[in-house]
């Protein structure tokens, strides 16, 4: 039954992807991208990846669609008409598809427990997490401590991309020549739609509360800084859509946003430096408390907070950069 469901979802995924590429209307393409992400999230869930499904649903289907729409408001919404199919490109693409499909016949089947990927470090992670870190969610443990360097790198990449967007588009009141006061008050995308306005206003506190739950419950269930940051940013973006761009910039001012972007990454790196000062290696949380296991738990809690702060800051700042430029 699960297999059939998976095949159904995957087939839909291919149909939606072809739809995205073929449609001439970019607005349609962006909305289809949202559906694509949601289907992808469902697929991840079928494949046992609860944390990834949560991230994809929050980031891909939520934030990414809003950002793309914000960008689309600044550029023409239709692709120019030209010949429908590109022969050479189609030939190359079909050839590579056939080659990749041919290569898959050597691959282990879906769910094969003897596949090489399950023989390397993964069993060690599953065995040692209860002993060394003692938190239920192995994904959070690997993310926070076993592969902490990697996560720090990803946070820096997110931070860098955020800075890049701000340099390109400016953020009124923080980067660029515009001031927050120049953004028109009360100008919002949903301001004149009654039902989204009322439902949205009711939902915002719960979305923010859920973000905090996901942030601090990430060690026990699916969740963590990346997901929480995306959900928190989604709640604030909803507020900005309802109340207006300038009003949202007054709740979390542009300078605070810039501060959030930097301080999360600094907090993460700071934990590494503190653990070095206490005599351990960089990002070795064992030394943070008297008991190594408690130290690990403290370390993960703090770095997840850093991740959440940076992701919130970057996603919100990027949204405001797009939204404020159009008006």
């Amino acid at each position, binding site marked *: 039954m699960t297999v059939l469901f998976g095949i159904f979802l995957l087939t839909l995924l291919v149909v939606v992807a072809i739809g995205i*590429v073929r449609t001439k209307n970019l607005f349609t393409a962006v909305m289809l991208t949202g559906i694509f992400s949601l289907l992808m999230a469902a697929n991840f869930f079928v494949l046992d990846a609860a944390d990834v499904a949560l991230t994809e649903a929050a980031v891909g289907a939520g934030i990414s669609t809003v950002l793309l729409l914000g960008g689309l408001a600044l*550029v023409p919404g239709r692709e120019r008409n030209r010949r429908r199919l590109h022969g050479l490109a189609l030939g190359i693409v079909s050839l590579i598809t056939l080659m990749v499909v041919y290569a898959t016949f050597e691959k282990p089947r879906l769910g094969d427990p003897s596949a090489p990927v399950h023989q390397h470090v*993964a069993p060690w992670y599953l065995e040692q997490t209860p002993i060394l870190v003692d938190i239920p969610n192995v*994904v959070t443990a690997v993310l926070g401590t076993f592969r902490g360097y990697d996560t720090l790198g*990803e946070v820096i990449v997110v931070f860098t991309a955020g800075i890049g967007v701000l340099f390109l588009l400016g953020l009124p009141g923080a980067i660029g020549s515009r001031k927050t006061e120049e953004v028109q008050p009360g100008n919002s995308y949903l301001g004149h739609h009654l039902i989204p306005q009322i439902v949205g206003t009711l939902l915002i506190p719960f979305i923010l509360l859920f973000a905090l739950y996901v942030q601090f419950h990430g060690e026990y269930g699916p969740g963590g800084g990346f997901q929480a940051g995306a959900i928190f940013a989604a709640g604030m973006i909803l507020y900005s859509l309802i109340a207006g761009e300038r009003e949202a910039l007054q709740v979390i001012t542009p300078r605070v946003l810039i501060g959030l972007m930097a301080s999360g990454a600094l907090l993460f790196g700071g934990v590494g430096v503190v653990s070095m000062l206490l005599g351990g290696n960089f990002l070795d949380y064992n030394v943070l408390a008297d008991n190594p296991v408690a130290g690990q738990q403290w370390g993960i809690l703090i770095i997840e907070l850093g991740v959440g702060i940076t992701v919130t800051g970057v996603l919100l700042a*990027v949204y405001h950069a*797009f939204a404020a430029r159009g008006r």
Partner: protein
Amino acid sequence: MELLGLFNYWVFAVLLMVGFYAVIAKTNMVKKLLGLSIFQGAVFLLYITMDKVDGGTAPIIQPGVVDAIYSNPLPQVLILTAIVVGISTTALGLALIVRIYEAYGTIEEDETQRLDIE
């Protein structure tokens, strides 16, 4: 039935190339960017497909359950962070497109190239 276990990989191959087609054949830059995110989604699917173990469950250890089978947490960690990085880079690309439109008045690649030559 044996071949059905490869269906995920086939979908990966098709999605990868659908995205790649948009990148090489479309001139509209927003379309190229969307193609790139489909391409990226295909890679995510490949990794998450590899994490599945038959009869397994999400790698969240339950106290008191002894012989549970857990799926592989490692690909999940890699893709979890990659998704957030993916949206940040997409936003950066979109910001570049907005600036290109402001400078050239078009987001069709062949037209910007022609304007460059003139």
